[in-house]
């Protein structure tokens, strides 16, 4: 009896195997780290791709948040078993390229021609040593969210968000209040990520640039974040927290969404999610500027890993489809991400979307002076060192010069 069952199982496996060979469907594993509404939209798109392409099946897998996905991806590359395609944060590709795990775009199309429609800044985020290795997928920049109701409560004009660091402090002082009169502050003026292990450095680098500083020297041979400008940027953070006390280092969870934080440095990628969550009058403004007017660019791209030519080709079909004009338009309108293609940015559909969602206009204006962080193998280490130094100066409220000097020494150990 058992023998019979086993034979049956064996035969049916063989038959099924032959069927799938017959249809020659290529199976592609795709890893991503999106969550919430963005993940739903994204995975629905993948399902749509599968329906339209019967010869390819993309198996989509959420591999945890960015940090978890990065670890898994690196481990899979080290073990020689990467997925066929992965969504990657801007700073993963340089390391992957150095290991030979990625297939450059030029193996599929002529990048010059293919990327002619792309914004320069979105190309900057995927260009490593002059070559595009991954497909730009989403681009965001840093932005100021603010609560117009809270502005009105303290007598500030809700249509005039702060434009400079000084105004940020001035507004913040008015917005930081002890509402219930128990002697403790329960509404704060401004908030942004201050903990190094959850990516505070991304925000800090923008403040560094605004103060006129740099991460690296001009030819990228050494770290340069210990000059006067860098010290000024760290001191500004320290003043916000310890002198003006308008930034709390223990922010309430989702403080902005529940109306206890008046202004929040955030990303354009969460405009749609935040707008859906809050029940107050929600405002979006460019980041306040200092010596320079600049904002940081974040984003993700899709990388194709070295597998078999057949799978690589199928992977390209998938990646190209996900980033095509129609899908880039839909993705941008559904999430608040900046369109990557000029044709999308100038399309009538997008113009209408901007009209209906005026705060997205800010994003587009900001994109003009947005700056991409350098795409270097050492960036991950250098930025990590910088992030910890800033955290140390901020939380321990100590003079930043010494801390930054030490951090530059340590960072230089990673640059060669």
């Amino acid at each position, binding site marked *: 009896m058992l023998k019979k069952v086993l034979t049956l199982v064996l035969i049916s496996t063989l038959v099924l195997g032959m069927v799938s060979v017959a249809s020659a469907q290529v199976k592609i594993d795709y890893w991503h780290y999106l969550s919430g509404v963005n993940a739903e939209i994204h995975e629905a798109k993948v399902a749509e791709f599968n329906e339209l392409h019967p010869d390819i099946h993309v198996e989509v897998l959420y591999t945890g948040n960015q940090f978890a996905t990065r*670890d898994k991806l*690196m*481990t899979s*590359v*080290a073990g020689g078993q990467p997925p066929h395609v992965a969504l990657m944060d801007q700073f993963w590709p340089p*390391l*992957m390229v*150095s*290991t*030979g*795990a990625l297939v450059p775009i030029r193996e599929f199309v002529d990048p010059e021609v293919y990327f002619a429609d792309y914004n320069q800044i979105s190309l900057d985020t995927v260009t490593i040593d002059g070559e595009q290795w991954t497909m730009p997928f989403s681009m965001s920049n840093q932005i100021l969210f603010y609560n117009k109701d809270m502005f009105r409560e303290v007598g500030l004009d809700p249509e005039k968000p702060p434009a400079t660091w000084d105004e940020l402090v001035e507004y913040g002082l008015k917005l930081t209040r002890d509402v219930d009169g128990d002697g*403790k502050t*329960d509404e704060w003026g401004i908030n942004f990520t201050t*903990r*190094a*292990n*959850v990516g505070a450095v991304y925000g800090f680098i923008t403040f560094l640039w605004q103060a006129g500083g740099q991460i690296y020297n001009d030819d990228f041979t050494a770290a340069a974040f210990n000059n006067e400008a860098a010290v000024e940027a760290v001191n500004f953070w320290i003043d916000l927290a310890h002198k003006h006390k308008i930034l709390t*280092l*223990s*922010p*309430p*969870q989702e*403080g902005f969404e529940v109306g*206890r934080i008046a202004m929040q440095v955030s990303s354009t990628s969460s405009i749609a999610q935040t707008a859906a969550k809050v029940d107050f009058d929600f405002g979006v403004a460019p980041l306040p500027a200092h010596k320079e007017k600049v904002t940081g660019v974040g984003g993700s791209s899709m990388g194709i890993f070295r597998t078999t030519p057949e799978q690589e080709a199928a992977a390209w079909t998938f990646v190209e489809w996900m980033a095509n004009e129609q899908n880039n338009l839909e993705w941008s309108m559904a999430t608040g991400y900046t369109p990557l293609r000029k044709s999308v940015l100038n399309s009538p559909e997008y113009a209408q979307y901007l009209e209906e969602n005026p705060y997205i206009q800010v994003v587009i204006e900001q994109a003009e002076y947005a700056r991409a962080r350098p795409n270097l193998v050492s960036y*991950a*280490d250098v930025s*990590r060192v910088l992030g*910890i130094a800033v*955290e*140390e100066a*901020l*939380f*321990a409220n100590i003079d930043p010069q010494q801390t930054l000097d*030490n951090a530059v020494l340590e960072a230089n150990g990673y640059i060669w």
Partner: protein
Amino acid sequence: MVRKWKRLGHEQTKTALLALLPSFVVFSVFTIYPIFHSLYLSFFNVSLVATTKRYVGFGNYTTLLNNPTFRRAITNTLHYTMGVVPVGIFLALVIAVLLNNRLRFLGFFRSAFFTPVITSMVAVSLVWTWMLEPNYGLINSLLSKIGITGPGWLTDPKWAMTSVIILSIWKNLGYNMVIFLAGLQDIPAEVYESAQIDGATSIQSFFRITIPMIKPTLGFATIMSIMGSMKVFGQIYVMTGGGPANSTMVVVYYLYQQAFEFYRTGYASAVAWILFAVILVFTIIQMRFFRTDY
């Protein structure tokens, strides 16, 4: 020696070895080999993802010992151990002695103290992170009821390590308690009876009978706790990520960061071997200290 080899030839021994073989193979491949491979890697400059490696001799070790963050990690780990072990052992012993009596709901109490031990560290850390949340967290809300403004438990560098220590003591209390209970129940009742007849007070019998009789158990619990504390990772990973300002950076978290965030496999292996050496020295000292001569 000859006799031993002969015995290996016995039919029963052969069968035993054969039965052990599968698990021994798995153990060798996944435990023994990686241990020695990490020693080998610790002498190289090698990245998790790179294809080349460069021999650097003791370079990784000297770099490490001069690295301020690593030194901070060492002192933090010792700070954590000194915070967790004495208080943890003392509380566990007190609770074990109390629960060794015939109490009502004895089973309930014993399971209540043991539950945290078997709960996942990640789950526990998340729950504690919420409880320690400075603005709406349970602990600060309760403190404010009695007029105390609680600190930013996990966000203030002065408090973060203390918070992790408190959680860890609570989490491991049950484990040591069970060990102590077993030790206490091994003490024959007659010893206490005769002490009572001789007029010993209960405090005297605790220090003169209980403590000496459970010395081996005490030794075991202390050694295990110290080893466990030196290897602390889960709660740091979930609750603080080594911060703020490196105030909770411990050796294993440093190792993890070097290996899986910076992909410096060789360097991280050197961290592991230094940690191994430190734990080995501590354990040898303690085994001397707790040695009993019966």
